């Protein structure tokens, strides 16, 4: 799940080396925290949050497949 978000964020970012994803487990819940270069925040979130929504949508697929619940926070 973390690899998926890392991949997508690196693909969107102008500074892929600055992409960091932290993963926190809380029972069957997984919390992902995405950190990107300040200049990339807009790119990763997208117009009207469309990139963030699309990433969450794919994260949901990964979570269902793994039988967990996952949420993505963009810091």
């Amino acid at each position, binding site marked *: 799940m973390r690899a998926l978000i*890392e*991949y997508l964020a690196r*693909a969107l970012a102008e500074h892929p080396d600055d992409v960091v994803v932290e993963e926190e487990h809380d029972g069957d819940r997984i919390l992902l925290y995405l950190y990107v270069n300040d200049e990339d925040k807009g790119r990763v979130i997208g117009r009207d949050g469309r*990139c963030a929504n699309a990433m969450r949508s*794919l994260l949901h*697929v*990964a979570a269902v*497949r793994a039988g967990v619940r996952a949420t993505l926070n963009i810091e």
Partner: protein
Amino acid sequence: MRIPDAPDELPTAPRLDAADDLDLAGGMLRDILNLLGLQGTEITARDPETPGDGAGLIAQVFDVYGEDDVASDELGLLIGRRGETLYHLQYLMNTIVGQRRENAPVFGLDIEGYRRRREQMLVDMAREIAEEVRASGDVITLEPMPAHERRIIHLTLETEAGVRTESVGSGENRQVEILPAE
């Protein structure tokens, strides 16, 4: 054209040295399927053929199919409710290619033939309702639909005698009206 199958290690970023835009987009699609654990899938690229494919708007359509029944079932999740996840994936793919390449074309995506089936359903429905409008003279408003689905209705009825179409409302509530021709 076939997009190569899974490598042994999970990808960490798109290969920006891809030969062309199609390769970059197809390679990303393969990466994302691998990251989701959907390895038993075949990706092919073809020319768009119908309004639903986005003929006239997009360069190539990627068709994703499972290699067996299990893989096909699993792909259902990637289509999502009313194709929502499919459109999200298509949006991400095009956004990333558009950021990396100048004047990149737009690519389409279909999974397990979902869009083709949905298009056929919309075409059949549009024709049936046009018939009703012609017979009754009433205006009939369809349920809200995304832009590419409304486009299918408009294009289907463009050549039908006795009716015309209009879109009303805004955002997620935008709907097609089928009206008797003046």
